[in-house]
């Protein structure tokens, strides 16, 4: 049985029923890592929020999302709260907004433990510090006692990673986890994510607009466009033999280092117009 099984998921918003996701199906086995790439508005984040049960009340959801055997669509808030943290957790794009600015980082990580495992605060601190150490934060004691604004962007994002992993969830959803970071810090955080996922054996749904970033963590990729999956396969296959014109465009635009400086860069549009592809 798959860990996550999404069948014909459809999500629309508001009275006008603007369709954000139009019939998406995929599944994810335990320990598997799947990248979802697409541009703003392609429906990739809405798909992730549906899996977390985090869509707002005015969202109309149809289809099925089964996580560890339980149906999420239509599940009430207390049922969802049990799943979140224990079975699934999420890392968001902007670490400053995902952390409470008025609470010390260690307490925020411990809160996740306490809520889901009823851990006492004394022993919880040891586990929090061990977890902060595991995500590659030097001086985890100091980080635990710091407020979010006293940490750098990369440190904050790793603290969030610690929060997402401390309950050993079966699935970690990462939504553009490194987009707000410098390239050097991004490389560090991606390498750490790769390592801790290996160590914990958690599955990962990794959302990004950047194929190069996704390929650091995942080997299977879905390409989303206008609320639909237009192509899926291994990074290797998408990279060497992309089929859909949009995927061809994404592969071409992701390789800035292959272009001659100052020359015109290929754009996604190039792959729709012009000569038909073989």
């Amino acid at each position: 049985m798959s860990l996550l099984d999404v069948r014909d998921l459809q999500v629309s918003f508001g009275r006008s029923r603007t369709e954000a996701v139009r019939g998406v199906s995929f599944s994810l086995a335990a320990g598997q890592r799947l990248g979802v790439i697409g541009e703003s508005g392609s429906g990739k984040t809405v798909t992730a929020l549906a899996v977390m049960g985090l869509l707002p009340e005015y969202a109309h959801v149809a289809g099925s999302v089964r996580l560890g055997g339980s149906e999420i669509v239509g599940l009430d808030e207390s049922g969802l709260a049990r799943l979140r943290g224990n079975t699934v957790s999420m890392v968001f794009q902007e670490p400053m907004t995902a952390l409470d600015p008025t609470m010390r980082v260690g307490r925020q990580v411990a809160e996740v433990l306490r809520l889901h495992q009823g851990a006492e605060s004394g022993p919880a601190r040891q586990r929090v510090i061990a977890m902060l150490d595991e995500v590659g934060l030097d001086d985890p004691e100091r980080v635990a006692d710091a407020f979010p604004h006293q940490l750098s962007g990369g440190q904050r994002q790793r603290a969030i990673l610690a929060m997402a992993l401390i309950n050993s969830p079966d699935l970690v959803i990462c939504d553009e986890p490194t987009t707000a970071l410098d390239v050097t810090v991004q490389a560090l955080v991606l390498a750490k994510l790769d390592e801790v996922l290996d160590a914990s054996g958690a599955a990962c749904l990794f959302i990004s607009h950047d194929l190069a970033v996704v390929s650091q963590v995942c080997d299977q990729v879905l390409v989303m466009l206008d609320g639909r999956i237009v192509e899926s396969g291994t990074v290797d296959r998408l990279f060497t033999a992309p089929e859909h014109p949009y995927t061809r465009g994404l592969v071409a635009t992701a390789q800035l280092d292959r272009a001659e400086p100052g020359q015109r860069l290929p754009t996604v549009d190039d792959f729709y117009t012009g000569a038909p592809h073989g």
Partner: protein
Amino acid sequence: MAEPRADHLYRAEGLTRRYRNGGRDVLALDAVDLSLDRGHRLGIVGESGSGKSTLVRLLAGLDHPSAGRVWFEGTEITDLPEKRLGFLRASVQMVFQDPRSSLNPRMRVSDIITEPLRSRLVRRQLTDRVDQQRRLAEVLAAVDLPPDAGGRYPHEFSGGQRQRIAIARALAPDPEVLIADEPVSALDVSVRAQVLNLLTDLVAARGLTLIVVSHDLMVVRHLCDQLAVMRQGRIIERGATSSVYADPQTGYTRALLEAVPRIRAEGR
């Protein structure tokens, strides 16, 4: 100190900027020397906090240095009061990272773009009375936006289109220098190529001098012929982009180059 030769477009000596932060002195820029000639395209790279944005804000006259001097076209701008900076405001325009926050959401695109032309300081510098509607149509066409875009508001446009609006606004006073601070880092990879192509075309067609700030060496490699690598408020490496890229002289530059994510299809 010898006066700089007038043929440098920009020249800076010992440029230093300190901030007070919670009772602590932060040295954002530490005695930077820099010169830039007309028609060149300079990339400034470094991590957050390396001082790259502080440096260009000083060059654009948006901030005053704690020490050091800056000349633009031979005129010292270091401590000029705002009312005498009109020539700089007309000649040097900036494009910022996030067009969501740099464009006023309550103004129509036409008013956003022509706003620099209505500034009293800038207006005095323009040789002829500028026909605002004509200039609007011209710059909208230059950035490939439809002529009717002027009547709409920023939220009606995508991220890439909003960055085009910001570029059109920067072009409105017909500047000589365009300073772009992380112009594509808030954009999707698929949109990034379009905006980079647009910048390349505009710089060539208008003979602009370009200064690009970025943490991404690939973006700078594509746009710029000269490169300055910054770390902890200092320029630690400077040279032709192609040679710095092919043969980086510092470990830090090498680390920046290696950090650029590339598609990794094998070895997993």
